[in-house]
């Protein structure tokens, strides 16, 4: 299993989660985060914004679904400008459902 963490634009978050739901990936967690990228934030006029608000979407999927999920996120998060976000994929050893105590997604 892999955990996919995508930092995306807040305004794109709902479109992405809807896209994921259509693809069959309903379960996810999202949180508001602040961050900056290679461009060191953004400069608008005289004001320099160092950390920009983003939404982090986090979901755990089976290994063979990783590419599909990443593609779904990429398609819906894309605007072509700086700040579209990044996707990280990390390994997960085990998952448990609290209600049943079972392992697996």
């Amino acid at each position, binding site marked *: 299993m892999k*955990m996919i963490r995508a930092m995306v634009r807040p305004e794109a978050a709902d479109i992405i989660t809807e896209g994921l*739901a259509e693809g069959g990936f*309903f*379960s*996810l*967690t*999202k*949180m508001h985060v602040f961050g900056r990228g290679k461009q060191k934030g953004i400069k608008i006029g005289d004001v320099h914004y160092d950390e920009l608000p983003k939404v982090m979407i*986090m979901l*755990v999927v089976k290994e063979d679904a990783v590419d599909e999920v990443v593609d779904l996120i990429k398609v819906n998060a894309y605007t072509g400008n700086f700040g579209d976000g990044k996707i990280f994929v*990390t*390994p*997960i*050893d*085990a*998952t*448990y*459902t*609290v*209600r049943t*105590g079972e392992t697996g997604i």
Partner: protein
Amino acid sequence: MKEIMAIIRPKKVSKTKDVLDKLGYPAFTAVSVMGRGKQRGIAGEVNCEPPADILKRSGGMKYIPKRLISLTVHDADVELIVKAIIKVNHTGQIGDGRIFVSPVDNVVRVRTSEEGDQAIA
């Protein structure tokens, strides 16, 4: 070392804290998150009474408020901690949460620069 990430009900956090403290892991990070599971969000599981028109809508709420707690533990303690979290948070209702276990390469305590197993409590 393993990181245990548990997404649980907000009202179960303090009980979970007490149990983790007794097991020797008082340190953890908590984040307030929104999420949904296989059931795509169910309005019935929040602590307050949601308006009737929200309940009527199929699919319920879009996201449910949850607490994400994350702690790093020694390899040997993973099962103990996971079982303890499951025991405390189990209600049998949908929305009890999920636990993820992932590998951690290194841990550094900033104050003393200790690394690895020593840096964990």
